[in-house]
């Protein structure tokens, strides 16, 4: 399988990449290429120019200055293995460790992953749960978008044609446990449903909870209902039942499904996996 013909450029700076984007309508960015190239091989996607940003310096590191900043070119394997990530955002280490397979994690990047915005991919769910910000550079300067606003719809994100994602920032968020759990599709390994839970505890009670869902829904999204049901509870079975019910209610209008995993099933499983995520997060 060969992609349709294209030109190739390999800029060495963000500024150079932005200029190439400005000068070439319909040009696409290539980082790890693990979402783009398969689509181009199947000729489901094409571009006159691929701008290979994979060697731009400074976009591939992880730093922790209170908030965790992950360069857009960090691979899933880098992130899964990062002690910083494991310490401050363990669910993200888990989720990036579940993307595709070892070969894909070695080369696929977080920036590419969020730009692609496959609703069944794992990292976006965690980024939404942790209130991450997507840092973007464009011709008119830089901006930062909250993950929950960035993921707009199926494969649709708040990113203009001339813009580049440079990093993903996860603000400091004191919590007592986080987890990402998923039901993988047996063929693709994408999430049939993926749930991220971030818990704050005050003694035996839950003082705060973030709950995000992906896989079952058109985009990674928070569940205010589930969060409210958990907050203030002892995370007992009754609270979990209430949270699961609220989650199912929250996502009712945003479900996706297919012949093997219909919408109604995914909706139910979101509730089941919410409970499992809470338990995995130490609740």
């Amino acid at each position: 399988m060969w992609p349709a013909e294209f030109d190739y450029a390999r800029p060495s700076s963000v500024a150079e990449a932005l200029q190439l984007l400005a000068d070439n309508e319909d040009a696409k960015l290539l980082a790890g290429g693990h979402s783009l190239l398969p689509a181009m091989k199947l000729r489901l996607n094409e571009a006159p120019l691929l701008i290979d940003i994979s060697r731009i310096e400074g976009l591939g590191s992880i730093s922790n200055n209170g908030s965790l900043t992950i360069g857009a070119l960090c691979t899933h394997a880098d992130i899964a293995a990062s002690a910083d990530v494991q310490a401050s955002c363990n669910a993200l280490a888990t989720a990036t460790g579940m993307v595709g397979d070892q070969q894909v994690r070695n080369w696929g990047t977080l920036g590419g992953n969020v730009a692609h915005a496959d609703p069944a991919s794992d990292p976006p769910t965690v980024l939404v749960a942790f209130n991450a910000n997507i840092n973007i550079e464009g011709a008119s300067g830089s901006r930062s978008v909250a993950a929950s606003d960035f993921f707009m719809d199926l494969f649709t994100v708040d990113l203009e044609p001339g813009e580049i994602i440079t990093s993903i920032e996860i603000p400091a968020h004191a919590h007592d446990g986080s987890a990402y759990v998923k039901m993988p599709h047996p063929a693709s390994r994408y999430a049939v449903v993926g749930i991220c839970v971030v818990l704050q505890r005050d003694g035996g009670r839950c003082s705060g909870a973030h709950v995000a869902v992906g896989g079952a829904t058109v985009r990674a999204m928070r569940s205010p209902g589930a969060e409210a049901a958990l907050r203030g509870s002892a995370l007992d079975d009754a609270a979990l039942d209430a949270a699961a019910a609220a989650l199912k209610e929250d996502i009712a209008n945003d479900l996706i499904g297919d012949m093997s995993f219909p919408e109604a099933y995914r909706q139910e499983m979101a509730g089941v996996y919410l409970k499992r995520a809470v338990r995995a997060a130490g609740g």
Partner: protein
Amino acid sequence: MKISVNVNGCTRESDVEARTLLVNYLRDELGLTGTKIGCDTSQCGACTVHMDGKALKSCTCLAVQADGCDVTTIEGLAQNGDLHPMQQSFWDNHGLQCGFCTPGMIMATTALLTDNPNPDEDEIRHGLEGNLCRCTGYHNIVKAVAAVAQAGGD
């Protein structure tokens, strides 16, 4: 586009179309046909090679992206005529039948043991998730990898 890739320890200079996939470059340009193509959606892993020491599905990488990189293929694994322990173990444990997935399996599992030298059965099975085999039911592949790990890898 002119590229220079160190393949199996030898620097190769080539002029390729931008759309040439690394796997096509290795197979068609360099004649290294041990690397296989089993699918077109990056699922099967038959095309697995090592790039800069890490396992990669070479069907999901452009040749131009490998410019300046070190690539190892199945042909580069045996040293001085001695099979790599993983190759030997696949042979000893009947870890292959038709052999088509085997080069990719061997490249993926050598990388797996680099990352985790002492995997248990679950970790081996999980580590094989990027590679499909239709013949063996994986039983003897798992055995082959475990045997190498037990013997202390390479």
